[in-house]
């Protein structure tokens, strides 16, 4: 493992048996897992290059049990790593050797469907897709659709502020949740918001969403549901150069059109996807743009014409319009299978997740190509073009000595490039452990200190998910005053991971 995690506390490890017994008292039956074999599935999440067996796994079934587990851990100075379905791509649920892994997998019940207020109240272990499935008979759906939606839990979506291909038009998780029940590390249970369109006081729901499991453990969620658009159609446009594709994206948005989804793939990604799913993608183009329009049929038909006309002004090489639901799904099949498709052409890959201003796309892709040559590793790019969110897939072979380290260095350089171009380190996957040490590329010590002080307001002892998001661990007392002379490091003496 090339990323350093907090040093395990031997005193806690020495107490392992006693801790297991205490947890078994709180969560009886099969709710505590402590054998090496049974803990195996919990060693890693979607960032599976990193593995670490937890000290013990606990799977509570009620809010009260979560509260008691956290209260016990807080009283005993034991670290806790929360986990939903374990699909995080940034290592948000990576265990620690001396921490309790708190799984929410047994919170699997949808508690209430309220069509009149257009909300669903659900337990956090319910999958993203299951929410849509529970309401689709009435024409509703839950809008954010991360590509892992069949597996990822809504609680995990809250932690990561998950996006998806439709978030340009319909928003991220944070724009689609109204309230939650959350248990703090002290065991205190708080209710925040609910069915009303906004809650009173500071926007706690807004700060909890995307907090990567560092602030509390969510045990119930209230989400907004929307009526499904009447219809959707897609346009698939091929371009001979990436600049033209980027220009086309800018002109579509400039024309006042916010598509339901707007995705781009570069040549290596197109080839990998086509070989895998045979979606009929053109193989001689440098970039492929899929634009999906949704809404009433009369609207979609008109917007399709407008997008087609715009594509023509941008020097399109090919253009296909879906004329049936089957055809639309086929257009998407390649894009949706892009990750596994790349998995077929390379023994291993890592998926990056930076965001750039849309207009900088050609520069970003050029830089990525240069880096690809420099590091001697291939790369395939898929891209949420509408909102500037890049997903370069770096190809490598973990069995070849040094390749993984090279791939990680390549990835870090891509993210640095995103920041240099005016963008950010992560658009939807989260910081986790993966991008933790890159945070200073984007934030000063003062910026990070403000974030960490907020963490202290929720978790004074830093017991919840330590080692994630922040490149340095601080005791809360140290964060009191950070007055520094401009340009100087605020904490010159503090060890960094």
């Amino acid at each position, binding site marked *: 493992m090339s990323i350093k995690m907090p040093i395990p506390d031997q005193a806690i490890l020495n107490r392992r048996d006693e801790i297991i017994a205490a947890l078994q008292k709180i969560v009886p039956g099969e709710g505590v897992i402590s054998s090496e074999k049974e803990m195996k599935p919990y060693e890693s999440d979607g960032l599976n290059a990193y593995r670490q067996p937890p000290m013990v796994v606990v799977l509570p079934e009620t809010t009260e049990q979560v509260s008691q587990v956290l209260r016990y851990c807080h009283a005993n100075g034991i670290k806790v790593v929360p986990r939903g379905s374990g699909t995080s791509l940034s290592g948000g649920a990576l265990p620690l050797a001396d921490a309790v892994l708190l799984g929410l997998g047994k919170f699997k019940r949808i508690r209430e469907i309220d069509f*009149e*207020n*257009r909300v669903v109240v659900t337990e956090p272990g319910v999958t993203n897709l299951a929410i849509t499935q529970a309401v689709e008979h009435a024409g509703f759906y839950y809008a954010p659709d991360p590509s892992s939606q069949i597996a990822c839990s809504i609680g995990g979506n809250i932690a990561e502020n998950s*996006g998806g291909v439709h978030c*340009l038009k319909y928003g*991220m998780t944070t*724009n689609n949740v109204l309230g939650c029940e959350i248990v703090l590390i002290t065991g205190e*249970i*708080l209710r*925040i918001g*609910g069915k*009303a*369109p*906004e*809650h*009173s*006081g*500071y*926007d*706690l*729901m*807004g*700060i909890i*969403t*995307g907090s990567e499991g560092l602030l509390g453990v969510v045990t119930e969620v209230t989400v907004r549901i929307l*009526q499904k658009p*009447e219809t959707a159609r897609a346009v698939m446009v091929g371009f001979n150069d990436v600049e033209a594709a980027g220009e086309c994206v800018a002109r579509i948005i*400039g024309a*006042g059109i916010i598509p339901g989804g707007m995705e781009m793939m570069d040549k290596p990604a197109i080839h990998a996807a086509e070989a895998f799913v045979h979606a009929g993608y053109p193989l001689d183009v440098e970039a492929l743009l899929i634009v999906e329009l949704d809404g*009433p049929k*009369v*609207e979609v038909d*008109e917007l399709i014409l407008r997008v087609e006309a715009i594509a023509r002004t941008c020097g399109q090489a090919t253009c296909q319009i879906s004329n049936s639901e089957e055809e639309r799904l086929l257009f998407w099949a390649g894009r949706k299978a892009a990750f596994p498709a790349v998995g077929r052409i390379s023994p291993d890959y890592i998926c990056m997740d930076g*965001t*750039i*201003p*849309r*207009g900088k796309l050609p520069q970003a892709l050029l830089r990525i190509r240069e880096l690809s040559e420099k590091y001697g590793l291939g790369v395939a790019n898929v891209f*949420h073009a509408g*909102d*500037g*969110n890049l997903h370069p897939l770096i190809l490598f072979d973990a069995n070849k000595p040094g390749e993984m380290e090279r791939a990680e260095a390549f990835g870090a350089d891509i993210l640095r490039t995103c920041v240099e171009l*005016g963008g950010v*380190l*992560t658009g939807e996957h989260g*910081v986790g452990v993966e991008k933790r040490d890159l*945070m200073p590329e*984007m*934030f000063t010590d003062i*910026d*990070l200190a*403000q*974030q960490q*002080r*907020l963490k202290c*307001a*929720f978790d004074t002892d830093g017991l919840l998910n330590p080692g994630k*998001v922040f490149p340095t661990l601080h005791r809360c007392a140290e964060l009191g*005053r*950070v007055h520094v002379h401009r340009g100087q490091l605020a904490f010159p003496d503090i060890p960094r991971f």
Partner: protein
Amino acid sequence: MMQVRDAADVEQAVRDALAAQQSLEIVGHGTKRQVGHAMATNAVLDLSQLNAIVSYEPGELILTAQAGAPLCDVLSLIDSKNQSFAFEPMDTSALLGTPAGQGTIAGMIAAGFAGPRRIKAGAARDHLLGAVAVSGFGDLFKTGGKVVKNVTGYDLCKLLAGSWGTLAVMTEVTLKVLPKPEDEITLALGGLDSEVAGHAMTAALGSPYDVSAAAHVPKSALTGALAEIGHGDSVTLVRLEGIAQSVAHRAGTLETLLAPFGRATRLAADASAAAWVLVRDVIPFAADGPRGDWPVWRIVCPPASGGKLGAALARESGAEVIYDWGGGLIWMTCAEDAKSHTTIREAIGRDGHATLMRAPDALRTTLDVFQPQDAALMKLTAGIKASFDPDGILNPGRMYAGL
């Protein structure tokens, strides 16, 4: 009164205040100073000269402005590129009786009020992408970014929006802008009582026709153009926006859906836009109108129960109410001596909350302006305030006593 010209001035002003343990009232144009509790401050930090629009990139859908940039300048700039803030920020000047056309961009964010399109597009918090601010530690920090999609670090923007200047002094903000809808039509139903109107709005919002606003104005609250629309009876308004073909199509199908509630009249784009400004800015309760002397509450509740709640409040205290957000937002006004002012939060119950928007000092000093929180939430709120402003330098006491 301290005027500042750049972020370094703000940082210095807060550091000086900190050193002197002198609290600050943070002010832009001061249009919303009367909202919230009177503050125990002895100095005003005036951000109105920090007023540049830093950058506007229509193709990237983002705008960056200094905190004190006049909102009207920003709105006319983005309007010139056919864009807008999708959350339809309200203009509080008529309601609060302040000069028209005033207000700064950071003031809009600090208050966090969204207009009728909130039900579809969210509020200021959903459109604030990044901010630079000075904390009560006297440190300039940044949060978020200048791109529309970002999950890097805690989303402190969400806390700044709606925090009424109690956490940090914003110096620069980056917001998402979106294309303005090409066309709009509003369907108006006449003569419904509040509960039935609530059902009609719920039906419209539960339809696939992408309703972008739904409001109900009872007969007694009608004013100006709203009175004309309803021919003197209550009006229920449902707005559709988008490209012309789509709006016309959806209006037709929605009329059929709403037929059990009566025959809808159609307001074309200009009339529709004019009607929604009246709702957005709560013109029926304007400070210079017939109820200008009455206190005004802003109540937020689950939308489907709004009609019933509003009707009960009106019945019990002789209050006037208007409903926006499909029933999820109720503006209520009643005489200063009505008992509702002290019982309103019991009437609303656990699922909603109320803010006293306009009131004479006598009432403001005896009531909680913002919804009181339970002990556990209050403790966390205090912890958050301390994490930004431990010495209580910034707008102390404006939201909650002692914070």
